[in-house]
């Protein structure tokens, strides 16, 4: 789950991490008012859940409240990577001497949490790590043990050389780690982490991504969920216990299991077709789930045929067959259906379909070839 910058800043504040003063605005009037309160000169920043807003023109500097009004008006009308900008953050302009980077993430290969810092902040850290790895300092942290002050200081000393900065950076790193662990984060990032005139380090941006699997522990964070992170079909599917992702092709797919669902899309492509979606009905599928799967797929008027690929394990083929028959009865299934049914209770499932005059394949490749012929 991704948070907007302004939401992430709120969490930073709760953990004692200082950000540049800022106010959220939903229209130009609020933006100019915010600029006035903050003392005039401000950055007007689009609030979006994707990166690259700067390049897209979603961040502008305003010298005074009037300019804040104009910039906010322009930015609030923008669409950045298909997402419309509905809010801007008006952030007080500060005298920046240097931009650093600090962040925490999970290294799934190394099985550690990594604290990352750099004295070359304000740029894409992944690109920097690739081009100039010597500028990116890392500390791998064993989650059972945490990091000792000595380890943290040892790493940060290479980035924040002056003693005054090092103390501040240490405090921030500790708070950031606490925030990361207590909220089941998968990414927390301050970029840039700026040294301002007077010698203070301040967060100029805030990025937080929370692990979906950890959300059951954090009811309060649920209030921060931004539904626009997901497409409307994805959200609907989630509500029914289905995993769904829209694609650009015209062959709708209903599959059990994520790996098989991906492989099914790949095989469709291999035979010259194009999948319209990824859809995993999950294990222990009830007939209702199949019905909902059809509904969601048929929202897309571009779908010209549907392939159902089931390899029953926990999923029972007769449940799937019942769902298909119910869908045939209750819905306007105007597109051709190709079914591949195998595994647990396949005889029962197949018999149900045959009675209704519906053919079910055993062989996946044949089923894919057939569905590709239809489009």
């Amino acid at each position, binding site marked *: 789950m991704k948070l907007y910058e302004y939401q992430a800043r709120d969490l930073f504040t709760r953990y004692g991490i200082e950000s540049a003063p800022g106010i959220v605005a939903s229209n130009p009037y609020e933006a100019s008012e915010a600029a006035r309160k903050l003392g005039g000169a401000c950055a007007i920043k689009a609030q979006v859940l994707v990166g690259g807003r700067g390049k897209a023109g979603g961040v502008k500097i305003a010298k005074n409240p009037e300019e804040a009004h104009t910039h906010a008006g322009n930015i609030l009308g923008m669409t950045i990577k298909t997402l419309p900008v509905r809010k801007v953050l008006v952030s007080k302009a500060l005298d920046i001497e240097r931009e650093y980077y600090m962040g925490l993430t999970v290294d799934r290969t190394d099985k550690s949490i990594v604290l990352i810092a750099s004295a070359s902040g304000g740029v894409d850290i992944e690109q920097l790590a690739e081009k100039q790895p010597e500028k990116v300092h890392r500390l791998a942290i064993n989650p*059972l043990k945490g990091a000792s002050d000595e380890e943290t200081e040892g790493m940060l000393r290479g980035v924040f050389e002056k003693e005054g900065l090092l103390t501040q950076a240490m405090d921030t790193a500790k708070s950031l780690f606490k925030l990361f662990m207590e909220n089941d984060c998968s990414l927390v990032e301050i970029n840039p982490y700026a040294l301002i005139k007077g010698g203070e380090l301040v967060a100029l941006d805030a990025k937080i991504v929370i692990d979906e*699997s950890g959300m059951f522990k954090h009811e309060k964070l649920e209030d921060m969920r931004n539904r626009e992170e997901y497409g409307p079909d994805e959200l609907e599917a989630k509500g029914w216990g289905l995993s769904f992702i829209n694609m650009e092709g015209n062959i709708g797919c209903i599959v059990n299991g994520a*790996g098989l669902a*991906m492989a099914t899309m790949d095989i469709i492509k291999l035979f010259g077709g194009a999948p319209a979606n990824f859809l995993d009905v999950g294990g222990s599928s009830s007939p209702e789930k199949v019905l909902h799967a059809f509904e969601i797929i048929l929202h897309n008027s571009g779908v010209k045929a549907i392939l159902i690929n089931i390899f029953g394990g926990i999923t029972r083929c007769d449940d799937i067959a019942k769902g298909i028959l119910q869908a045939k009865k209750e819905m306007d299934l105007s597109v051709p259906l190709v079914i591949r049914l195998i*595994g647990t209770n396949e005889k029962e499932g197949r018999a149900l379909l045959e009675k209704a005059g519906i053919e079910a394949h055993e062989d996946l490749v044949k089923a894919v070839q057939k569905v590709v012929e239809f489009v």
Partner: protein
Amino acid sequence: MSILINSKTKVLVQGITGHDGSFHAGSMLAYGTKIVSGVTPKRGGQVINGIPVFNSVREACDQTKPDCSIIFVPARFATSAIRESADAGIPLIVCITEGIPVLEMLANYHYVREQGLRLIGPNCPGLITPEECKVGIMPARIHKAGSVGVISRSGTLTYEIVYNLTLKGHGQSTCIGIGGDPVVGTDFVELLDLFEKDSQTSAVVLIGEIGGEDEERAAEFIADNMEKPVVAFISGKTAPPGKRMGHAGAIISGGRGTAEAKVKAFQEAGVRVADRPDEVPELIA
């Protein structure tokens, strides 16, 4: 021989009184798996399918001495279930549960290892040594005893490939689902190593998918350390970047973890890569 489990393996089922636990305990038992005990807190003293139920893993271990534990408890209780098994010193812990928070799994990973034990999963179908022992939820009848080792990040896709193997007469030594999460207890490399050393296994099938770099590391290991032939299949060639494809670990992020990169790594390591599940048996032969 096989790896990790065989006809002598004694199995404990954690969460045996639950919906999934009781069903799969029954089906494992029917396959011939030696299930010696079950655990559900506060349900000690019950008997399910002839299996005695205990309140704690410790108690079950004292009385029935299992070599392996399989976990069916919901995600919010999974970490304590894994650690309970680890604290009791069970050498092989198999966690079927999906949806365990990543930071908990990171800690569990180290917790289990520091005690010299092995965790398979989570978010996996378990493992099977055909015609001997099944510790998992896979449909048993698609399997046949033989000499092909199978390792996979997926469930049903593994069934698809095993089905094709059996259909073409390639039985399996042991099949292991390592799990679809970003952090799993045992990775491809460790199991490749076990298969390389296993006298019954003559070839290995590796089923990977987008996300992470476990496949790339496996390719490197194969090139440097393996004599036995390996055939790979990678799913997610059509997956869009930045989207989690059903499995929490199946995501292309920052241009990393693509199917192309994995296929290339395998090909460079001399591993044959199948385009379709039904091509896997031909590539082994």
